[in-house]
């Protein structure tokens, strides 16, 4: 920040880069909370960010030490890490530092220094004077549907709307005439206003950073809406520029009001030089200590996993002659346990993993909907539209959610009538929770009985620039891409399921974060149904045959949806099944039900409200109840504990208990010797799985600044975000209730292929390579022939031999989950003990 000269465009660009980039909550897209620092090496980046903005970047030193004490950080691993980084001779020296040396762990951030002068020199609390009104006006302007009386002055830009309102009203937002006059004159330059407020141009950039980061939630939201107006249903034109101008006007107004006419700009009282906010941060001994601890914490877990895989590789899982069915699931780590249970109840089946949009990307319009839903990974912009029609069911309303209760007369009538209905409802929600229109239900995303325009009628059939439905060629390309990607090109079973996932939850503004990340934070039911339709299409089958994928006519695809919170499943277009397959399907449903029972049981071990030792049927019912309980802030635990991403054959993990911590992507290196398909598979791993993992990481290590804090006091703001109380800043990131179970470790990607092929693949695109070379995500290649592990570090794959030689074997999973202890408190030292080690299943 050595700009003596203030360059507005440059500073705005920098601000947008560093502000949090969470979009309105209706679509929850996980992303690396420190994406702005991703061009740097992980540890350099987090410590730099920490110094600038005052985050906690790893666990605390005392926590690491306690984790070591209880054995969660493996001593052997710790010594090995130190030896690797500091040399074998240094191990004792550094170990002493890590374990016992006293450090001053206080972190005084660079941000906020210049604006602190208002309080120190002028005795003015400018934040208190400006922020409440600023937030209220911003929220009213962006509001999607809470207020009854909408922002009255149009929608052609934040500043111009406010100007119009000021011109056209007998009252003003401002207390003094000076700020109002400035606004009404128009043509406001940030630089000019800063001249008034700050004075010396050298401080401008620092001042704006201080100002915007004093409420980074709202500023980040403004940037997100500016960049993606489509992220709001009721679109609003707003820009960071307008926000800054208006905020500076409010500051001038407050200063004028408090100090009278003749106040001096801030810089006249500043004696220090401007701070280079974004300048580099030299590593300290403490940051090295933190980095060593972090790696030791991570490898204590990875090492077991690798040992488990090693053992697993040696075991034989003979494939059955004829598969009973195949089921494709999302790579989501929550499906990891369900797949294990399905394979347990029917050893003859095969389960596969692929990103949950099943390689079909499109917008979907539910019947009568005024908007389109995007159903594919967030960075993709589809060219297709699928419309729902022939839905008979009407959408139900919830009487008590009417805004009539908030008016004068309406309120009078409704308190005397609805008030007593509310009492009954209150009793119901507590004693008999059940699904209602007020609960976000994964199964209502698409109507099972409705129909979809999947096949394109003619190329002219378009709407708003989107082609309605896919042509045969387009369908074939997608089905082929999917099947080749997961290596399912022969030995088809009679039924192939494509099972998407979604999540139902009640009273949960963050419900989008529990849905499918590969479907832009929505349930993937439409995708599974569309894919199945395509793969069943005779013409598609013909074309596939020409391209070498022969699917027997007997084989049929069936779409379905798994509700990861309620542990319920639903299937689509079952009527197309042949008689034989319908019979098989009926039997399979029973199997799925059994697997869901077991899955519910396994999940229940983390839920205090459920006694895991009770019968399967009871536990399953309780799990369902949780998903519709208004009083339950943890309907499910989302991606909490995610740590691994395994790309390869199911044989690598089939006999392992990974405790729902692994993203599992099926891939057969044999069908892809040059890694062409692998490139496609690897591309989303960073942004999707890495993004999820890092968002959990940062929300876990600093839930106050990088997470959303506890959910309990949250207040829904304008239907776009949450804040604490009425005057608080928006809280991006994940709430405490989602991250308690999470161990903050980086994602370990394990790919089954030759190291040189994997290297070539990750190097094929710079944005992909960045994740690995900068160590935001670890990667290991498993040599398909020698089964040796190769860990990627500093641009090369080198062999890694696990320290742990053997993982424990368990005979009965049910006993394991029934006996597992719940965490005592959500302090990491207690919480991590709830996460079970890797076991080999007998």
């Amino acid at each position, binding site marked *: 920040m050595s700009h003596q000269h203030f360059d507005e465009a440059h500073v705005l660009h920098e601000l947008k880069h560093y502000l949090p980039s969470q979009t309105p909550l209706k679509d929850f897209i996980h992303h690396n909370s420190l994406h702005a620092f991703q061009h740097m090496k992980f540890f350099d980046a987090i410590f730099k960010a920490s110094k600038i903005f005052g985050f906690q970047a790893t666990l605390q030193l005392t926590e690491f030490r306690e984790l070591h004490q209880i054995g969660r950080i493996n001593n052997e691993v710790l010594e090995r890490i130190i030896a690797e980084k500091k040399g074998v001779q240094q191990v004792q020296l550094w170990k002493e530092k890590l374990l016992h040396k006293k450090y001053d762990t206080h972190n005084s951030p660079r941000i906020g220094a210049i604006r602190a002068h208002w309080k120190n020199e002028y005795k003015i609390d400018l934040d208190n004077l400006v922020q409440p009104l600023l937030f*209220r006006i911003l929220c009213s302007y962006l509001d999607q549907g809470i207020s009854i009386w909408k922002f009255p002055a149009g929608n052609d830009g934040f500043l111009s709307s406010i100007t119009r309102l000021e011109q056209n009203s007998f009252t003003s937002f401002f207390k003094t005439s000076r700020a109002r006059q400035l606004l009404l004159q128009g043509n406001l330059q940030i630089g000019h206003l800063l001249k008034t407020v700050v004075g010396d141009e050298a401080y401008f950039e620092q001042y704006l950073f201080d100002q915007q980061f004093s409420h980074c939630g709202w500023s980040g939201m403004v940037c997100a809406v500016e960049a993606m107006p489509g992220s709001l249903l009721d679109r609003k034109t707003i820009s960071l520029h307008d926000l800054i101008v208006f905020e500076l006007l409010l500051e001038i107004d407050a200063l004028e009001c408090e100090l009278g006419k003749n106040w001096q700009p801030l810089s006249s009282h500043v004696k220090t030089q401007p701070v280079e906010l974004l300048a580099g941060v030299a590593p300290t001994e403490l940051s090295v200590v933190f980095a060593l601890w972090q790696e030791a914490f991570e490898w204590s877990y990875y090492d077991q996993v690798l040992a488990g895989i090693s053992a697993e590789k040696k075991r034989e899982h003979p494939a059955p002659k004829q598969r009973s069915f195949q089921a494709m699931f999302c790579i989501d780590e929550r499906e990891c346990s369900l797949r294990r249970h399905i394979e347990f109840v029917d050893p003859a089946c095969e389960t596969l993993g692929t990103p949950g949009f099943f390689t079909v990307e499109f917008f979907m319009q539910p019947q009568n909907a005024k908007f389109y839903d995007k159903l594919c990974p967030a960075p993709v912009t589809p060219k297709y539209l699928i419309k729902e029609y022939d839905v008979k069911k009407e959408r139900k309303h919830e009487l008590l959610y009417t805004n009539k209760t908030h008016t004068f007369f309406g309120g*009078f009538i409704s308190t005397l009538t609805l008030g007593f209905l509310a009492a009954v409802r209150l009793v119901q929600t507590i004693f008999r929770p059940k699904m209602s229109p*007020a*609960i976000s239900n994964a199964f209502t995303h698409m109507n099972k009985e409705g129909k979809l325009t999947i096949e394109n009628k003619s190329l002219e059939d378009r709407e708003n620039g989107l082609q309605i439905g896919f042509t045969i060629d387009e369908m074939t390309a997608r089905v082929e891409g999917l099947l080749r990607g997961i290596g399912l090109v022969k030995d088809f079973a009679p039924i192939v399921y494509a099972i998407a996932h979604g999540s139902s939850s009640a009273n949960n503004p963050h419900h989008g974060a529990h849905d499918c990340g590969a479907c832009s934070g929505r349930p993937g039911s439409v995708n599974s149904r569309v894919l199945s339709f395509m793969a069943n299409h005779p013409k598609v089958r013909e074309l596939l045959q020409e391209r070498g994928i022969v699917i027997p006519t007997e084989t049929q695809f069936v779409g379905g949806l798994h509700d990861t919170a309620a542990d319920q499943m639903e299937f689509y277009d079952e009527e197309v099944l042949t008689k034989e397959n319908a019979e098989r399907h009926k039997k399979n449903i029973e199997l799925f039900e059994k697997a869901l029972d077991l899955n519910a049981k396994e999940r229940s071990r983390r839920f205090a409200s459920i006694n895991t030792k009770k019968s399967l049927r009871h536990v399953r019912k309780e799990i369902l109840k949780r998903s519709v309980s208004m009083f339950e802030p943890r309907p499910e635990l989302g991606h909490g504990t995610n740590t691994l991403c395994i790309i390869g054959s199911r044989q690598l993990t089939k006999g392992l208990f990974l405790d729902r911590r692994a993203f599992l992507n099926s891939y057969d290196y044999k069908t892809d010797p040059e890694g062409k398909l692998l490139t496609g598979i690897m591309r989303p791993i960073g942004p999707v799985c890495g993004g999820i993992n890092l968002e959990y990481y940062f929300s876990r290590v600093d839930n106050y600044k990088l997470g959303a804090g506890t959910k309990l006091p949250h207040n829904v703001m304008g239907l776009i975000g949450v804040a604490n109380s009425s005057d608080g800043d928006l809280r991006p990131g994940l709430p405490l209730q989602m991250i308690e179970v999470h161990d903050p470790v980086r994602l370990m990607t394990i790919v089954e292929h030759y190291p040189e092929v994997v290297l070539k693949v990750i190097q094929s695109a710079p944005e992909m390579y960045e994740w690995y070379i900068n160590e935001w995500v670890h990667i290991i290649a498993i040599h398909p022939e020698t089964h040796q592990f190769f860990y990627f570090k500093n641009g090369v794959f080198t062999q890694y031999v696990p320290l742990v030689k053997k993982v424990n074997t368990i005979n009965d999973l049910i006993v394991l989950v029934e006996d597992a202890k719940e965490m005592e408190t959500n302090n990491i030292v207690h919480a991590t003990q709830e996460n079970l080690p890797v076991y080999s299943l007998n």
Partner: protein
Amino acid sequence: MSQILQLFVLLPLLAFLASMVISKNKEKLISGIAITTTGIHATGSLIFIVYWIINGYPVLDIKHLVLYKTAAFEFVINFYFDKTTAVFATVGGIITLLVSIFSRYYLHRDEGFKRFFNTLLLFFLGYSLIVFSGNFETLFIGWEILGFCSFLLIAFYRDRYLPVKNALKVISIYRLGDVCLMLAMWMCHHLFHANITFSQIHDEAFIADHLPQHTSLFIFTSVMIVVATAAKSAMLPFSSWLPRAMEGPTTSSAVFYGSLSVHLGAFLLIRTYPFWENILVVKLLIIVLGLTSSIIASSIARVQSTVKTQIAYSSITQIGLIFIEVALGFHTLALIHFAGNAFLRTYQLLVSPSVLSYEIHDMVFNYKPPIHDQSTGTLQKIKNAIYVLSIKEWNIDWFLYHFLWYPFKWIGSKMHFLGKPVSIILLAIVFLFGVMSFTNQDGRSLHLENFLTHVFSLLGLLLVLSSFTKRDDARRAWLFVIAGQCFVTLSIVIDDNVDLIEAFIYLSGITVGAVIGYICLNRIKQVDNDISLNQFHGYSYEKPKIAFIFLLSCLALIGFPFTPTFLGIDLLFTHIHRDQPILVALTSFSFIFIEIAILRIYARIFMGQHKKNNHPIAYRSS
């Protein structure tokens, strides 16, 4: 039958005491106690009501416990039961029970799980005391407990700035109401030469006897009651505290600010109705207050873009209407309205997080792009003016600050010279002179006595105000507020030749609290050698035990019920005569600011973001 009434108060008290001693991580036991207690309470009161109706629903009144008695003064715990009690007790019991069950899951693993349930039980005790109370004194105990619970629950997330700031804001307004209620009690005492009970108020002949000769005093008392109810029920000009009180867990907001606590103003109005029903001015005042509050609040509710603040203002709108219904004598309607509003807002608050998905889903299907009226006519200008004003909450906050708090702050800030050594010595001499003049009764003239009384009272107030605005060492502020209390006591002692035992009752609580509090502050000073009141320190993170002990000594100092000071305050007040308006005003202001100054010290030193960033701490704006 009336003997049963006391059980409804005893039960929550016992539960609260039991709950205090349970270990922090026994979630099931802690919530179990609360649920059982409120459950028994709710069923018990339902059964009792049936029994009561069968017996021909008589009005019950029982003198239960004499806490203190002299020839001129009697402090009695009195219970009372009628239709109003029946409705408030039932609705309160049911809502607290349901919210306790809700919270058992909702607050699972929250760091303050135990704190929450303890406070909830304490609240329930206060609420029961109020609704079952048979005289002002009993009601006042509950009233005070409730205010303190509010402070604790608003500042529940004490490691953040906004909750603590807002908790102080709310308790300040509550305190104003409390002191008004105290004045009403004081005046009643002088009006009837005894502490009267609610059943006496309901005795038409009794009121009619006194009213004609003392109309202005009746009006004064009524206005004090109205101010107290307006503060509690967030009527104008206090309305802006209600949305800001929504800082704690959603469940506590639901039970306090959505439903029970906020309706107690209306309860007190119904209770005291016979007292003012024949005074037209008061009736009109209440109607106008209710109506303007209702209209203004509904305009603010219309522009709210956040769910909880919208509910808060909608609730005020209805409470305003309830005030009108009470004033017009439609008490049954008012009670139904109360029950409906309480249930509706509780429910709406509890499910408020679900509004996001419900409304967004609704928008997907029913969205209509808004049409903006582009006209520039006068009507549009008026409309826009109202919109802008509503967004700014009609400047209520600004108004309160500038006309209510700022003058006192200004005076306080001019009083810092009192901290200079010379001033301290002078003050000490003056104080000793006062003590001597009291002990040496022979040589005093009435004039001198009267003069001294006022001087001491004024000095007391100035010392308290100075403490209230202090920004340096917390220990000095602490000593100042204690010195202020000594002066206030002395002024009254001189004035009315107060029995030394009474002064002792008052000062005994204060002395213990003062010494322990000072030791606590000293301990904290030793940590970083910095306890300036210029910022929030958040020491409860580092020193939770000291924080708790200090809080207890604060309670002793502010005269929380169950400390002798509480009784003492009441006693002192009765010694001020009704022809001493200046003295009563000075004393009242002192009592308002004593509590605010003390809780401010507690908040600044022990609450807010912890000042050391060697662990994750919250943003100030969060």
